[in-house]
């Protein structure tokens, strides 16, 4: 990471600390904001957060690695999370999964080479009466069919730049 980038990131973290405070219970909201802005939480970012909150970096690392939605490794601009729990399974999630792999060109747990898409499994998304359920970033799609997968991906591509969060890899 370039010195300028590091500086910007440090400033950003200090801004978040300003907003959420220095107490330990500010840690997760700060990490959530960082993750939303950068699609990952780098070792450098963890170090700065730890310094600001006066805790050991291993504490921050422990938290980041515990939660599904906080990641060290970089994720795509659009994270597809397909529910694999029972009701969506009964509703036919397997075929949707296959089509997602085909149309995104990646497997579950992978990120596309251009950094646009990640594909992951999720536990029950709370849309069990309308499965198969798929979460794309914050947006939930229900009763997804294999035929619709292509359209959902196209929607993402169309909004890219306009609504997609600006990702500067930290």
């Amino acid at each position: 990471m370039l010195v300028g980038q590091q500086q910007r990131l440090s400033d950003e973290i200090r801004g978040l600390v300003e907003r959420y405070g220095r107490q330990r219970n500010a840690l997760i909201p700060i990490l959530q904001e960082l993750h939303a802005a950068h699609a990952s939480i780098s070792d450098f970012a963890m170090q700065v957060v730890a310094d600001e909150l006066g805790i050991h970096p291993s504490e921050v690392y422990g938290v980041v690695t515990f939660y599904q939605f906080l990641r060290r490794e970089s994720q795509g601009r659009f994270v597809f999370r397909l529910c694999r729990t029972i009701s969506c399974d009964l509703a036919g999630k397997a075929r949707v999964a296959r089509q997602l792999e085909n149309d995104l060109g990646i497997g579950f747990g992978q990120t596309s080479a251009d950094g646009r898409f990640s594909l992951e499994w999720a536990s029950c998304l709370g849309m069990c009466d309308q499965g198969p359920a798929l979460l794309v970033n914050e947006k939930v799609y229900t009763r997804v069919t294999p035929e619709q997968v292509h359209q959902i991906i196209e929607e993402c591509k169309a909004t890219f730049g306009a609504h997609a969060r600006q990702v500067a890899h930290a």
Partner: protein
Amino acid sequence: MTPVSSKKTPFTFDSIEPESGLKAALGKSRADIIAEISASNLRGRGGAGFPTGTKWNLAAAAKVPPGGRKFVVCNADEGEPGTFKDRVILTEYADLVFEGMTIAGLAIGAADGILYLRGEYLYLRPHLEGVLARRRAANLLGKNVAGRDGFDFDIRIQMGSGAYVCGEETALIESLEGNRGEPRNRPPFPVDTGFDGQPTVVNNVETLAWVACILARSGQWFKSAGTAKSAGFKLFSVSGDCTAPGVYEFPLGVTVQELLDKVGGSGAKAVQIGGASGHCIPASEFSRRIAFEDIATGGSIIVFGPGRDMLTVAKNFMEFFVEESCGQCTPCRAGNARLLEGIEMLERGECSMAYLRELLGLCETMQVASKCGLGQSSPNAFMSILKHFRDEIMGRTAVAH
């Protein structure tokens, strides 16, 4: 592709005059508010069924350390497979939930409410923040709430980050404090030592909505529905093989068959009640009641039609637990992985009867030796499926017994 409302029946919530519960509470002493909740026999709607009045009494009586304060936490982590009623309540009845939290704050003497919302429901947050802003503007939150001198109460939202175990109340508190969501030993209970070491009431979304209704009507009114041990109404999240899945309100004590007839699942082979941590009920037991004294549940009902392979069902639940175990204690961390391997052996027809008995012994160990409810209940589905569908499952064993 776009979600539609899951609400399938009218809810009692519809008949409650907005803010009438809070108004009634403001006219009562703290002790009388709690007495009303106790008189209703309301038990927690999040799954464990702890009497709400008792919980509040403990929190109200708890001593606050100097400079400390009490907290009201609404558990909106809703992660139990097959459960989505809290999403519906937060989408369509958010005011009722915030009203219930405010009443809880008044009753136990707390000024701070926290809604812990699962990360998967981030899309609900703008709506919920809007409702909170409106309540602040109407002085239903903030300083001297609704003109009551000295009663300050506000609510903030904190997001989860994708961890089922954080629905367990002590893990939830760990997460609120900025830690890994690892459950604590209990006691001490949150009512004594909760968020930031302070007395804390943790209640489910639905419980808090009923609180507002009970204050609006009365404890007596609530109790007139349901059974002697399971008072009042309950929302059920119904999914799986039925023609009309969605959220239904029934009085507690409804039989499985009555429920199935209503949701278009009459010909079912089995029903999973209570989600992945719950029990699988075969058709021969559909006359049983859904109530704390018979089959208890946080409201998840998953229907399995005649063609379903129950071993596949057990496997899906076990995969869930392997993924969601926090890994803190051995019976759960290692036990769930072992059970999943066992299920895969059964699938391949490679599990001997002797090994199956060993697995059942392991299930019992997990039930007693796991640190929290996740590991204590994760063997339930496998055990009940094995009990009721052994023919179907053992049919695949290569080893004769």
